[in-house]
C-alpha cells in the first residue's frame, strides 16, 4: 500500500485570533479511533485543498489531546488560505515528525524561554506540558521564565495564554521593538531582557524566533555562562516530506526534519547554519 504520503483528515474545531497575522487553529482528527501522540517541539505536515503541504510546528501540549493546536502566521499561499478557513473545515495532516524538546530532562531545571514573534508557538507546548507536570507534581521543573519580543504592541500574540501562565507562576516578560502611545512595558530587543536574568548551572534556555534573533540570543546566553548543551533552539527550514527523504532541509550530514528541528547549541556548532552567522 502506498501510504507514506497520505494525510489523515482532521477538522478545525476552533480558531483563536492571536493578532492580525497569527491565528491558532485547534484541530481534531476526524477518525477519533486513530492513535495519535506527540511531544512538544514536533511538527506536522498540514495539507489544504489545492494548496499542497507546509510544515507547521505544534503549539499545544500532548496533554491537551485529542486537540492539536497549530499557530500559524500568514506568510505564503497555504498559510494565507488557512486564515480564510472557518471552524468545521477539513484539513489533512501527516505526522508528527521531528525530534521533540528533551522534556524528560527538564525536571529540576530552571527553564528560560526566549521567543520572538511566531517563535513562541513551538515553545508554548513545552510550557503547557511542564505546567501540567507541575500540577501532577511529577518530575517537575523548578521555575519557568519567558522572555517574549514582538515588533510592535499589536504584533504580540498569545496574550490570553501569557496571562494564564502568569497566574500559574510563569515569569513572563514582554518587550516590543517599536512602542505606541499605549504601551507601558519594555521597549527594545529581547536580548535586552536577558540583562535582568541570572543564569545558573541549573538553567536550560529554549530559544525560538527569527534567525537573526536566535544568533544574538545564543551569543548573549553563552557570554552569560550558559553551556552549549543547556541552550536549545528549534530551526525553521523549507520542508517537503517531513520524514528525511526529500532533501530540502538537508544541513551537512543532518536533516532538520529528522535530526531536528530541535538542536542544542553543541549540535549546531558542528553544522554550518545561518542561525550562528
Amino acid at each position, binding site marked *: *500500500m*502506498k*501510504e*507514506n*504520503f*497520505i*494525510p489523515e*483528515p482532521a477538522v478545525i474545531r476552533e480558531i483563536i485570533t492571536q493578532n492580525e497575522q497569527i491565528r491558532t487553529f485547534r484541530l481534531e482528527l*476526524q477518525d477519533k479511533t486513530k492513535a495519535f501522540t506527540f511531544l512538544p517541539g514536533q511538527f506536522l505536515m498540514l*495539507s489544504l*485543498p*489545492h*494548496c*499542497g*503541504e*507546509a510544515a507547521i510546528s505544534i503549539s499545544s501540549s500532548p496533554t491537551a489531546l485529542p486537540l492539536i493546536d497549530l499557530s500559524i502566521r500568514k*506568510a*505564503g499561499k*497555504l*498559510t494565507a488560505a488557512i486564515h480564510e478557513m472557518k471552524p468545521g473545515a*477539513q*484539513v*489533512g495532516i501527516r505526522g508528527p515528525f521531528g525530534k521533540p524538546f528533551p522534556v524528560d530532562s527538564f525536571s529540576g531545571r530552571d527553564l528560560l524561554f526566549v521567543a520572538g514573534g511566531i517563535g513562541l508557538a513551538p515553545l508554548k507546548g513545552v510550557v503547557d506540558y511542564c505546567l501540567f507536570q507541575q500540577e501532577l507534581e511529577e518530575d517537575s521543573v523548578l521555575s519557568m521564565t519567558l522572555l517574549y519580543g514582538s515588533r510592535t504592541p499589536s504584533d504580540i500574540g498569545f496574550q490570553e495564554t501569557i496571562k494564564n501562565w502568569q497566574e500559574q507562576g510563569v515569569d513572563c516578560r514582554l518587550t516590543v521593538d517599536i512602542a505606541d502611545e499605549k504601551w507601558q512595558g519594555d521597549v527594545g530587543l529581547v536580548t535586552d531582557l536577558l540583562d535582568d536574568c541570572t543564569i545558573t548551572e541549573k538553567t536550560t534556555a529554549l530559544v525560538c524566533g527569527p*534567525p537573526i534573533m536566535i544568533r544574538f540570543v545564543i551569543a548573549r546566553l553563552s557570554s552569560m555562562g550558559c553551556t552549549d548543551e543547556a541552550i536549545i533552539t528549534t530551526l*525553521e*527550514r*523549507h520542508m*517537503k*516530506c517531513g*520524514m*528525511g*527523504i*526529500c*532533501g*530540502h532541509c*538537508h544541513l*551537512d*550530514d543532518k536533516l532538520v526534519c*529528522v535530526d531536528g528541528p530541535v538542536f542544542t547549541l553543541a549540535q549546531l556548532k558542528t553544522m*554550518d*547554519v*545561518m542561525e550562528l552567522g
Partner: protein
Amino acid sequence: MIDLKELILPKDNLIPLLRKLKKEARLIAPVQNAYGDTLFSEISDLDSAHIDLDNQPQSSLKPFLLPQQEILARYQVDKAGYTFTPPEDEQETIYFGVRSCDLTAVLYMDLIFSKPVKDTNYYARRNQSLIITLGCNHPFANCFCEATASGPYLEYGYDLQFIDIGDCYFISAGRIKGADLLDQWSYFFREVQEEDRKARYQLLLEARGKFTRNVQVAHACRRLQKEPDPEAIWEALSRRCYDCGGCAYVCPTCTCFSLDDMVLDDTQGLRLRSWDACTSSGFTRMAGGHNPVDRRCHALKRRFLHKLKDDFARHGKVSCTGCGRCIDICFGGVDITTFIDLVTAVEAS
C-alpha cells in the same frame, strides 16, 4: 561476495530467454530509437525493438523507480470532506542491460528510501523489480566508475549480472530472485567452464585499463573530510551555474524531490512528487521569502558536498557512481569532475 549461482548463456539464447521473461513481467531495456538515442524503454515487441547494449543509456533507472513526476495521491474536496486516495500498486518489472553504475545508484536509493522511514511508494516499485546488469567491458568516454568503486563489474547487489565474454554471457546470480530465475529457465544455460572464468577475469582487467578519465574521487573525499570547505571554489563554480537543474535530473543518485498539488478542477486534484534540484534557489526558500542558501556563491555547494562528504560521513561511501552523465551537459562546464579536479589541485599546490 560469493554468487549464489553461475551459468553461461549462449548469445543466441538471449532473445528467446527475454521472450520468456516478458511473458510474466514488464520488460525494460536500453532501446535505440530512430534518432539514435538509447533510452531505457518498455519493450512491447522484442523483434522490432533495437536493444542496444553497446551504448550508454541516456537515462538511468531513476525515471522508473523515482519518476520525474509521480502521483502520490488523488484528492477530492466535496461534501464528504477532504479525502485522499493512494495510487494503484505496481506491476512486476524486469530491467535488463542495466550498467554497474546505475545498479549502484539503485542500491543507494534503496538506502535513502528506507531510512529513517521506508518510502512505501518507492518500495512498491522496487519490490516488484528484478534487475539484470551488464558488466562494462568498454567504459564510455566520460565514465569513471572505477574511482567511485561502482564498476566496471559488480560483486553484489544485482539479481543477475551478465558479462559479455564473446559468443556468450557469463551470468552470476547475486540474489535469490535471480537464482530462482536461472533455475526456472535452466535449459537456456550451460555450466561454467574454467576458460569462461578466465575470459571473464581477463576482460575485467582489460576494462579497468580502458578508462580515459582520471578523476581523483577518493583524494577529494579525503580532503573534504579533513579540511574546511573550499569557499573560493564554491564561488568560482557557482558563478558558472545557470540553474538548469540538469545535473541533478540526469544523476542516478540525486533523489531530492518536491511535493506539489496539481489542481484538476474545483473539487479534485493530484498530489505530485517531482524531481527537484538543490541548485535552484526555490529549493530552500521559505514561505516568508527568507533563504538560508545564497545561490550566487553556494549554488553547487550542497550538491557536491552531499555527494562527496556528507554521504561518505553517513554511509561510508560517496554517492557519485561515476556514470559521467552530468559531465557534458553542464551549460557552464562546472560538473562534479571540475570540482574534484579543483579540490585536489589546491592540495597539490
